[in-house]
């Protein structure tokens, strides 16, 4: 017993581990990029590793194929340290560096700053005299009021006041004040001599369940300076929000660990930006965050268990502004941090921010926003009204729950074309890298191709009788070979099984049902929508026609379907830069009516009707049926 040395390669990271600890926990403690979807329950089979030297105490898992067992594969979460060991993380278990939707716009513009969350105000004051002997603080606020339309006198933090007399006099009354907005009030949280002037920045942060995106924004020009994105480290505790809440309930230290993990993720990305752009931490003076309600509560360290229990009540809808230091973000410690308000437990600040970014709350035309993240939410409305719902689409669009599924990282097959005559597949991977698996957009393409070629029926079942080499039965499951192992230099083919197809059909049915029930609640037809805006993890790469072909989106003219990428971070950036936008987010959150679809009896029926390609009611998809008829 005692401690042992464990080395993970190819990353070459090593650590001392306690006997009995699982390899997964050692790997995650070290920050080794090892996949795990179930949070170490032994249920997902993604954390495959191969012990190369030394010994570990591993349990057999039915999730490993006989071939894998022969090669010495084990599941890291089911293996315990018994001595020194060297462990290989094979390529299929390595969590890739993500190609996340980083730009966040696609026509979602944010203009020049108008009342940013915090700013630097350049001040030049007259020195006090016997005639003008007003105190230093008043002199400072008087100068600020001359430049900015501040209603009341700005407040000041004690550390700034403590240094105030000295800084003012040493700087010859030429200083820069850092002024921020907190809960609608202005306060001075920093003061520097004008001679030490440096540019100041703010952050827009999308706190996603799977991925986190941090944007660095120049607060003077509003320009996007840089972006960093990465996987949410909380993934070690499970892929979806529910398993993470459960993890947070298990032990009290785990709740803290979940907050720590998300902060570590964000701070790591901030560090990346600071290094790349050669900044000092104090130059980043504010941050605007948007995330779903669960992520928001985790970020702020708010106990989250009520979110998963009926009647699903969030801790708050409006979250107070806090100082960076208080929440734990490594920017200017006194800089204001704002979190986008939420609508309900399952429609969060990310949707509110997305609505803001699309501007659908400002125009007459009624539009729908569909955010396909790890969960899937729909919002519909215009300048007068807004409704929303969460539709429990599940993480299949992010490649989770799919045998050869993966996040949209390097090597993920993101686009697929199939030519039935030659039986050839053409596909493109993220970053043009060697194919490792398939992501959401690739899945949508594949299923649409299979349907068009008649290789699956409308229920998504493989027709093994068709003249193609690509359909076959693997482990009693019929499926379709997307790429042959030998084509890509690996032993296993990239294979899409019937169960994978069913998973995606369930997800697309939930999205379509969510949209159609929400439309029904407001007595509208899909054709009356001016536009459908699709946001989320695969919004960039999704083929609109294929999405309609499989019945995920309604059969509208394709020009009505627009991809807006990461609308959440775009909304966070708008809120960072504009006081007006911050007010709008509050309005959006306040006026958005949430429908809890789990309580609506017709949702389930609409969902079952959607479990068909494209839909049980084929008359809803005339263009798709027409194309099918042409084929026959």
């Amino acid at each position, binding site marked *: 017993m005692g401690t042992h040395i464990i080395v993970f390669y190819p990353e070459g990271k090593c650590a001392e581990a306690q006997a009995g600890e699982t390899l997964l926990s050692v790997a995650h403690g070290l920050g080794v990029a090892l996949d795990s979807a179930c949070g170490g329950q032994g249920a997902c089979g993604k954390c495959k590793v191969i012990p190369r030297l030394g010994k570990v105490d591993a349990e057999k898992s039915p999730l490993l194929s006989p071939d894998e067992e022969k090669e010495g594969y084990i599941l890291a979460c089911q293996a315990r340290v018994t001595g020194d060991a060297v462990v290989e993380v094979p390529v299929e278990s390595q969590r890739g560096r993500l190609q996340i939707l980083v730009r966040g716009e696609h026509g979602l513009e944010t203009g020049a700053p108008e009342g940013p969350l915090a700013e630097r105000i350049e001040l030049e004051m007259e020195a006090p005299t016997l005639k003008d002997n007003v105190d230093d603080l008043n002199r400072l606020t008087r100068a600020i009021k001359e430049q900015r339309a501040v209603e009341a006198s700005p407040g000041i933090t004690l550390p700034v006041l403590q240094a105030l007399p000295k800084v003012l006099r040493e700087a010859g009354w030429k200083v820069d004040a850092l002024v921020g907005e907190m809960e609608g009030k202005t306060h001075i949280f920093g003061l520097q001599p004008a001679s030490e002037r440096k540019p100041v920045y703010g952050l827009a942060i999308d706190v996603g369940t799977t991925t986190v995106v941090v944007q660095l924004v120049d607060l003077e020009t509003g320009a996007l300076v840089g972006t960093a994105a990465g996987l949410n480290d909380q993934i070690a505790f499970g892929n979806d929000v529910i398993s993470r809440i459960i993890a947070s309930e298990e032990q009290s230290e785990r709740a803290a660990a979940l907050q720590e993990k998300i902060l570590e993720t964000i701070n790591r990305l901030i560090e990346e930006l600071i290094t790349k752009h050669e900044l000092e931490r104090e130059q980043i003076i504010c941050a605007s965050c948007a995330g779903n309600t669960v992520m928001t509560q985790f970020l702020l360290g708010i106990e989250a268990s009520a979110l998963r229990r009926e009647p699903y009540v969030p801790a708050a809808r409006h979250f107070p502004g806090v100082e960076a230091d208080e929440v734990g973000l490594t920017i200017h410690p006194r800089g204001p941090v704002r979190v986008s308000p939420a609508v309900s437990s399952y429609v969060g600040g990310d949707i509110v921010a997305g609505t803001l970014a699309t501007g659908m709350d400002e125009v007459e035309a009624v539009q729908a926003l569909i955010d396909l993240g790890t969960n899937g939410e729909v919002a519909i409305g215009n300048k007068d009204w807004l409704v929303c719902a969460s539709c429990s689409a599940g993480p299949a669009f992010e490649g989770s729950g799919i045998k050869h599924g993966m996040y949209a990282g390097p090597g993920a097959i993101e686009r697929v074309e199939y030519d039935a005559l030659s039986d050839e597949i053409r596909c493109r991977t993220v970053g043009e890298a060697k194919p490792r698996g398939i992501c959401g957009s690739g899945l949508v393409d594949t299923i649409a191709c299979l349907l068009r070629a008649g290789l699956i029926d*409308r229920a998504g079942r493989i027709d093994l009788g068709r003249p193609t080499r690509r359909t076959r039965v693997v482990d009693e499951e019929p499926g379709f070979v997307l790429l042959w192992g030998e084509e890509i230099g690996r032993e296993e083919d990239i294979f899409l099984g019937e169960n994978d197809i069913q998973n995606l059909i369930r997800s697309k049915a939930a999205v379509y049902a969510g949209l159609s029930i929400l439309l029904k609640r407001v007595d509208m037809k899909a054709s009356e929508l001016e536009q459908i805006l699709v946001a989320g993890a695969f919004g960039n790469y999704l083929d609109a026609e294929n999405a309609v072909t499989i019945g995920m989106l309604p059969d509208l003219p394709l020009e009505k379907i627009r991809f807006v990428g990461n609308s959440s971070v775009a909304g966070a950036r708008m809120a960072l830069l504009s006081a007006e936008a911050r007010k709008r987010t509050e309005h959006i959150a306040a006026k958005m009516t949430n429908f809890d679809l789990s309580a609506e009896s017709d949702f389930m029926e609409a969902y079952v009707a959607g479990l068909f390609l494209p839909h049980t009611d084929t008359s809803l998809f005339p263009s798709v049926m027409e194309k099918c008829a042409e084929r026959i």
Partner: protein
Amino acid sequence: MVFEVPVEKWASAVNTVTLGATAAEGGTRASTVTVGGSTTLPFLHFEGEIPNRPVIAMEVLDMEPQSWPETLSAPFDGVLNDPAAWAKKCVEEYGAEMICLRLLSAHPDSLNTGPEEAAAAVKKVLGAVGVPLIIWGCGQADKDNEIMPRASEAAAGENCLLGSAEQDNYKTITAACLADGHKLITAAPIDINIQKQVNILVTEMGLDAGRIVMFQATGGLGYGMEYAYSIMERTRLAALGGDKMLSMPLLAVVGPEAWKAKEAKTLEADAPQWGAEKERGVLWEAMTATCFLHGGTDILVMWHPKAVEMVRTTIDGLMKK
């Protein structure tokens, strides 16, 4: 004020399906049965046409039934181990308009008989009676895929009704149906969407929608009957509203469901407050069947001859204009 009966005008009609083929039609049946064709909800003669009356098929098993109560087995005394004699009795003595042959013995948990036995049973029953046949598998998907093609082939040209195609297993039986000129039962678990999905799937294999009869899992009186009833009613409304993929006639399996109920089979000695079991079971089946008539059922599959008689009388009454 004069009361005016409100009259709905429906856009469409239920499909008309004829079962059985006479010698002139290439078969050997003495009679055929035609169901469907309604342009209104059940028995609303003032509103539309109801050209064909609902029919009763009596069910025959290809093996001696296990644990049937005395009340149920008594009318078939001496024939329960011979499907041909049993069928003959149903037709000649009890006036069955159709026979539903259930190939239960093929079930792996039962006698696990093979396709040859299934084909033989079909041939025997066809030879014994002149009414049209429903031929239904054992309910185990893999086994049915083994026996049904042979059973279908044995009845080729007889225009039987084969059961059943389900969402997860429809291809083999649909192919058999197409090959041997039969009609097809499409089944769904009390779910109108899945029903429609199966119908689309089999029609996309080339089976004409006019060759389909739909079956939603039946619930007996007191055991979920109302779910099945409301699905039937919705299906019928969809048909009248013009939904071509839900316009097929409906079938209900009443006998086995009604007789599953403890209220139908418990002996009077064990539950004296419930009254005589001889009447109770029969009434349970007749009541279940009558409810489904009102839901829109076109073909009732029944067991007890007394219940059959009662329901036939009811149909006579309901069909009077």
